[in-house]
């Protein structure tokens, strides 16, 4: 016996647990008979779960308007200073061993920053993802006040490898690119700084991917914190922890706007 297909509104109410028992049972029967409908419910369930996470990284500490105690300030400052010191002074320069395709990688960044950026579509996003595999680490840089505004497959390939270009923009003129390559040929395993002068380039490779992070005119210490955070996040394959988010926020607060 076929069951009438529930409409979109009813499916939403079903996912939210808002239907009366009888109506919910009817939807459940329809789902059992209709794989396409079941996929729609799975999509809604996933959307609801992902939306629920939006408030997770809030960084809000309830405090009185008065200035915080010096101990708290000193502790945060010390923590951030340690993070930044570890970042700035421990990232080796890698000019002698820079991979030959680095200029091509920089070209991707330069082309993007000189353009508003072409709009992508879901097909292109999936194409980008499929070219680097599911293990690629896509960092959320919102703690650094940088929003992902571009996610495109690389064209042409770099060093014969496919990859994707993630572009992030801030609200003070900063633009940062992260290239994720299907292989890390020529890149060291340790986070290494390749850029000189205004070209700020960091690179490293994991077991499965190569990562190249690029910017221009960004505060050096801030970019160092971002590079270190993404590097460690990619190694651990985990979201940023509280200390990292604090350091990202702080480094942005104390940095100057980006120079174009």
């Amino acid at each position, binding site marked *: 016996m076929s069951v009438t297909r529930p409409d979109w509104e009813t499916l939403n109410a079903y996912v939210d647990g808002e239907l009366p028992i009888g109506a919910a049972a009817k939807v459940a029967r329809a789902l059992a008979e209709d794989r396409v409908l079941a996929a729609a419910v799975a999509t809604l369930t996933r959307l609801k779960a992902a939306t629920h996470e*939006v408030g997770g990284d809030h960084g809000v500490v309830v405090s009185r308007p008065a200035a915080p105690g010096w101990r708290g300030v000193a502790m945060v400052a010390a923590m951030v200073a340690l993070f930044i010191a570890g970042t700035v002074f421990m990232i080796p320069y890698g000019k002698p061993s820079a991979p030959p395709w680095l200029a091509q990688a920089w070209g991707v960044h330069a082309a993007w920053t000189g353009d508003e950026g072409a709009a992508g579509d879901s097909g292109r996003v999936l194409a980008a993802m499929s070219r680097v595999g599911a293990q690629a680490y896509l960092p959320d840089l919102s703690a650094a006040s940088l*929003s992902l505004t571009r996610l495109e497959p690389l064209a042409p390939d770099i060093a014969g490898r496919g990859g994707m270009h993630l572009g992030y923009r801030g609200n003070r003129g900063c633009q940062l690119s992260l290239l994720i390559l299907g292989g890390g040929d020529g890149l060291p395993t340790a986070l290494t700084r390749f850029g000189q002068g205004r070209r700020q380039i960091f690179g490293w490779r994991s077991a499965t991917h190569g990562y190249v992070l690029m910017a221009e005119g960004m505060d050096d210490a801030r970019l160092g914190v971002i590079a270190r955070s993404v590097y460690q996040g990619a190694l651990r394959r985990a979201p940023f922890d509280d200390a990292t988010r604090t350091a990202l926020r702080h480094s942005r607060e104390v940095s100057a706007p980006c120079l174009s």
Partner: protein
Amino acid sequence: MPQRRRIEAYLGRLFGYALSMAGDRDQARDLVQDCALRALAARRVPEDEAAYRAWLFRILRNAFLDEERRNGRRGHDGAETDGLPGPGEIWDFDQRLISELTVRVGLAKLTGPHREVIALVDIGGFSYAEAAHLIGVAPGTVMSRLSRARHALLRAIGEGNVQPLPRPEKRMAK
């Protein structure tokens, strides 16, 4: 339970709600901070947990709307022009596109009422009836608005999670 600790249990949800409405993390943090301080200063606080949660969200909502009015904006403009999916339109949506990051970017492209209803139900955890009471509409309106909002969000994620955001004016740097 001390009031401060009681509020802290809701900070994440309040921030998600504030971020959905304001679209800016710094403004969202300020709104939550303002909401928490107003709540801490209140003489009478709801005992019932559900009422307490709704009370906190109402404080935050009012703070946001006050700020919008002060800045000469109208806060929740945005006609509900988005239609519901036609047969087969949404069913084959590729779930791999859905993540916290793409949802966050997609939410920023919705109208105010759409962002708010999604935030109240999916982030705040309110029932349709509770959300309806909070924003002053009928539960049926929440149901239809929410289904339209999610449809718009899926479309924004599918089509536009890679669209560039407006390039900021340099003079806005701070």
